[in-house]
């Protein structure tokens, strides 16, 4: 059985009257890419900062690699790499110097450090920019430098707190691929984001947070099973009459039909061949329609069904 890397029990963090983290429990196993998903202000970063012993918390226990985490547990800190949502590099140092400096806070041996720094530069693809100062780098390259500074010492646990904020899609994909590569090399990863697509793409297990609470946790499949919706069919068409919506509602597995923004939405719960049956009705009634989409539920649907609000509306 895989070793427990992170264990958080009953964590509570208050800012005066506001409860930022509310009795939060978590257990992450070695080799996982664990996603912490939630809208802005849901308590993801606060949880991470408590985990890292940066923030004082009111209640709870935190263990990393089976040891109690504390600000002076330097041996434990050596095994952790942190990439925060704010870029934390020196403007006055070059790309190489920045990575060497931060790696040097973990690795004292110069020979090993040099190799690690070279590996990190190669890993994030900044070979051509080693003599550049951060101000000369684009947003995406800067994020990559930020990541290199956090992972150069080859940590066993990597914590990435919204590393793709304000990053172009190309750089974002590269970052996500890199995270999977780090995981493949043996690192356990904790990834926080409010972008559900990213979390869906790379995380093996996900905890969804809202208002400081963990509202759901599991694999993607487990999370999606928690909700009623299994398929949403949307059809571009003119406003349908009542008889058509009644016919659609009467189809097997359909539990809701609604028309909004020029589309007819048919929500299905379970079953197979829902789309074929819906198309059959449209053909039978000789209805003109445009594009048809069949979508499986997303984590946003999970969040929506549990909290009654959209993940992105909360941003």
């Amino acid at each position: 059985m895989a070793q427990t890397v992170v264990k958080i029990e009953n964590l509570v963090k208050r800012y005066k009257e506001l409860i930022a983290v509310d009795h939060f429990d978590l257990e992450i196993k070695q080799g996982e890419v664990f996603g912490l998903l939630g809208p802005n202000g849901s308590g993801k970063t606060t949880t991470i900062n408590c985990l890292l012993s940066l923030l004082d918390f009111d209640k709870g226990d935190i263990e990393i690699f089976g040891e109690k985490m504390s600000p002076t547990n330097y041996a434990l800190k050596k095994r952790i790499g942190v990439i925060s949502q704010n870029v934390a590099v020196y403007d006055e140092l070059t790309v190489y110097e920045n990575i060497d400096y931060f790696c040097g806070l973990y690795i004292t041996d110069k020979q090993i450090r040099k190799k690690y720094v070279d590996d990190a530069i190669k890993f994030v693809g900044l070979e051509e920019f080693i003599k550049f100062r951060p101000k000369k780098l684009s947003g995406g390259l800067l994020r990559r430098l930020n990541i290199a500074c956090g992972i150069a010492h080859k940590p066993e646990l990597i914590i990435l707190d919204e590393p793709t904020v304000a990053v172009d899609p190309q750089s974002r994909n590269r970052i996500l691929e890199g995270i999977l590569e780090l995981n493949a090399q043996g690192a356990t990863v904790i990834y926080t984001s409010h972008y559900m697509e990213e979390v869906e793409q790379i995380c093996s297990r996900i905890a969804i947070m809202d208002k400081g609470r963990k509202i759901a946790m599991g694999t993607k499949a487990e999370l999606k099973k928690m909700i009623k919706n299994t398929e949403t069919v949307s059809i571009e068409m003119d406003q349908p009459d009542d008889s058509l919506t009644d016919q659609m509602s009467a189809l097997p597995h359909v539990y809701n039909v609604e028309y909004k923004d020029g589309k007819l939405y048919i929500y299905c719960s379970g079953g197979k061949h829902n789309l074929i049956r819906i198309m059959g009705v449209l053909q039978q009634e000789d209805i003109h329609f445009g594009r048809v989409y069949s979508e499986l539920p997303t984590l946003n649907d999970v969040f929506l069904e549990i909290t009654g609000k959209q993940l992105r509306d909360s941003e």
Partner: protein
Amino acid sequence: MFRHNFKYDILTSLRVREIIIWLIIYPIALGTFFKVAFGNIYDNDIKFTTVKTAVVVNSQEGGKAFKQVAETMEKDDDAMFSFVYTDKEDALKQLKNEDVRGIIYVDSKLSLTVATNNLKSTMLERFVEKYNLNAKIITDTAKSDPAKMGDVAKALTEEVSTVKSEALSKGNTNMYDQYFYNLLAMVAMFGSLAGLHVATHNQGNLSPLGARKCVSPTPKITTILSNLCATFVVQAICMVIAVTFIITVLRVDMGDRIPLVYLTAILSGFVGSSLGFVIGSIGRFSESTKDAMCTASSLLLCFCSGLMDAGIKQKIAESSFAWFNKVNPAAVMCESFFSLNIYEDYTRYLQCVVTMIITIVVFITLGLLMTRRRKYASL
């Protein structure tokens, strides 16, 4: 670990544009400006040198009396005036060539011609006024009480002839050097900006860099102390550059105890950096707010030490806030340079040095106490 931090802290500090501008370029520019603005004032007008004066004697009787007074005055070691007897044409020529500061015409009474109005011409005017006044007293006494005339004449002649400059000490009394002391104090105080970053770059709740360092396995005290040492080294380099420029390029007379001037400048730099460290450690203001606080406090303290108005320090000394001059780091720095340059003994200088050392220790201790936290209530 310390060496690794120290190396990069030095590198970072030397590449901070603000440090280059405020600690190297700005003092060089301002020092040059001071030299251009004040450098010649002292040499030409303030520094006490004998005022060379042409004398054109038009009256034998008046000339005899004047020569008697003039000879008495010229005998003195600290004689204010030296007189050259010549004719009017030559006197005017000498005045035009600035060989003499003025021309005294001796008739029944003295009259004066000067080329420019400055301190030396004013001294000549006062002398002529005094001479004419006393001559009138002697004339009046001769008419009213001839018996006392000898005593009066002797007394008045001595009064005029004993007018002389009294040097305050044997040191350099150029009052404009005060501006260069203030300039050095300002360079030291602007070092507070570098000290400020020591605090903000190591505090997890003040900057992302601080947070990154706090989650690393390097003890906080190591990063802070290496950072402080690097800041001190860079500050010392800047102070040495400033002093060297002032002494060798601007040729400001900093006295004959130059090694101590350098040491004092370096110590002053440490005071400035420590002040920045303590300001950076206070509260949770943003880095830009703290930058503004640092610049404002540095300028205010320099203002109170006389950077913009040389008289302000005296005004503070005469007010009920006289104690402020004793604790204002900028004023103490200026005082230490002044004491080194002026006084023979080291009593006042050592008082300043001890005050600066205590200031450094207090600031660093306060800063360390405030930055020692390892966990934060909020980020």
